[in-house]
């Protein structure tokens, strides 16, 4: 611009023109040296705005958790300090320098963690029923997750501010939209866990419940219930986490017990679970594939794959697609309706891949909160 208008300004040599030319030159020099600094400040401000929102959210989650614990559990005395202490509860990740045997260690680790949560909730909510206790465990986990998100973002914000290192600030700034999505997803679970409503992750459990409802049921593993369902001359052994409390159970142990009981005489295994959808895919789309449809730590998947490989049983998978925002939020209608489509998919796979007299195992994977059987 200075080059463009320079000749004109020079042609009119007035004091004002000289001042304006100086201002422009000065602004140019400032921008040359401080552009990155200005960008850093802008990014810091973006992080600060988000951080304030997340702080409000995690405090709201904490307050709601305490309120629900008091309402349901009717504890004697003030539980707030104990809840605050438990908000900082952590699990030290397993050492994987020598990964052999890490799955069993993971199993032990997860069981210890579950035991700790159960014990803590028993103290915080002494009058809660087992179902309510399961839901309260989940509620505490959501509050803990929000607390962790807040602390990690705050860490990078303060570190960036202290060092004014654009690369530290940039890495948190670039993933802010995803972080907000995750925080929103967790926060939408608070209402569901407070009230014990079915959540998006529970679609697999609903499919299993629809298949096994009305048939005699028995416990086959920790928090896992199964039923034998006759269907077109075949026997379907359907299992899911025991509801209606918020639990995912130990489906790997359930499957191992069933297969060992039947000495591997099972034609196919069908796993049904919620799966993350890609942008553009509709909520509630039912897709079919092969493999173990199960998320979590990987321990369950590993054990399921191991046992099916031992008996060489084909494993079919049915995925009910949903966004991150649906996973722990109260179930949306398209997802509930998708469970009917998934039931039809299970029946079609049974008809196409098995003969009368065969046995089929159907595993409904996911959190069974708000879902009976």
């Amino acid at each position, binding site marked *: *611009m200075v080059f463009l*208008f320079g000749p*004109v*300004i020079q*042609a*009119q040599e007035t004091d*004002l*023109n000289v001042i*304006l030319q100086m*201002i422009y030159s000065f602004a140019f020099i400032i921008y040359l040296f401080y552009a990155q600094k200005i960008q850093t*400040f*802008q990014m810091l*401000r*973006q992080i*600060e*705005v*988000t951080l*304030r*929102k*997340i*702080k*409000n*959210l995690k*405090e*709201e*989650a904490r307050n*709601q958790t305490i309120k629900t614990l008091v309402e349901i559990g009717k504890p004697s005395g003030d539980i707030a300090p104990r809840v605050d202490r438990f908000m900082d509860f952590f699990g030290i990740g397993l050492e994987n320098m020598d990964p052999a045997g890490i799955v069993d260690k993971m199993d032990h680790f997860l069981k210890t963690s579950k035991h700790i949560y159960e014990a803590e909730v028993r103290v915080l909510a002494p009058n809660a029923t087992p179902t309510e206790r399961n839901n309260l465990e989940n509620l505490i986990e959501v509050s803990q997750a929000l607390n962790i998100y807040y602390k990690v973002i705050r860490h990078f914000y303060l570190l960036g*501010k202290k060092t004014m290192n654009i690369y530290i600030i940039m890495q948190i700034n670039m993933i*802010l*939209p995803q972080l*907000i999505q995750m*925080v*929103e997803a967790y*926060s*939408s679970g*608070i*209402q569901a866990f407070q*009230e*014990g*409503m*079915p959540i998006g992750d529970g679609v697999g459990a*609903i499919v299993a*419940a629809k298949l096994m*409802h009305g048939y005699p049921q028995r416990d086959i593993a920790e928090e896992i219930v199964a039923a034998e369902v006759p269907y077109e001359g075949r026997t379907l052994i359907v299992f899911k986490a025991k*509801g*209606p409390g918020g639990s995912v159970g130990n489906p790997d142990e359930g499957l191992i017990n069933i297969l060992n009981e039947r000495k591997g005489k099972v034609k196919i295994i069908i796993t049904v679970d919620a799966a993350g959808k890609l942008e*553009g895919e509709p909520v509630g789309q039912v897709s079919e594939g092969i493999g173990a449809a199960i998320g979590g730590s990987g321990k369950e998947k590993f054990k399921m794959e191991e046992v099916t490989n031992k008996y060489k049983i084909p494993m079919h998978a049915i995925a009910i697609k949903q966004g991150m925002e649906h996973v722990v*939020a*109260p*179930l*949306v*209608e398209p*997802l*509930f309706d998708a469970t009917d489509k998934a039931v039809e998919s299970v029946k079609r796979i049974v008809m196409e891949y098995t003969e009368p007299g065969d046995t089929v195992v159907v595993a409904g994977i996911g959190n069974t909160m*708000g*879902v*009976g*059987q």
Partner: protein
Amino acid sequence: MGEKKGNMASAAGMTASWIAYAAILIVGLLSLFSLYMGFINYAENVDIAIIYIFIGAAGFAAIGYMLLRGKPNVAKQEPLDVKKVEVYTTLECPKCQQKRVRDFKRGDFVFKDDEPCTRCDGMMMITKIARKKEEEKKKEELSWL
């Protein structure tokens, strides 16, 4: 909560925002002056007047950019809060197929025998629990996808 929100603003953050506002004010005044000079010089010297007007317009454009760019995208989004959604429970009588829909209440779960049927002597069972449909969002021009 509001008080806490206010307390959260760090001193550095406040300083930064005041500097930004002061810069906007100064640039605004200079731009206004430049535009004024442009208009009063227009009759006498068109070349100089155009330069003044250009500088004034550029100044206001810079202010607009600062205001828009200064507000982060995340701040423009809906405020983050613990959302409460309406959830309904559908009950059906297995005997007479009578159907009833009511608001969800704590303790409801799918396949729970909940209440006696009002039409026959059967028990109504909860067959569905789902979130009420949100208002349909405006259809985006993405149908080709």
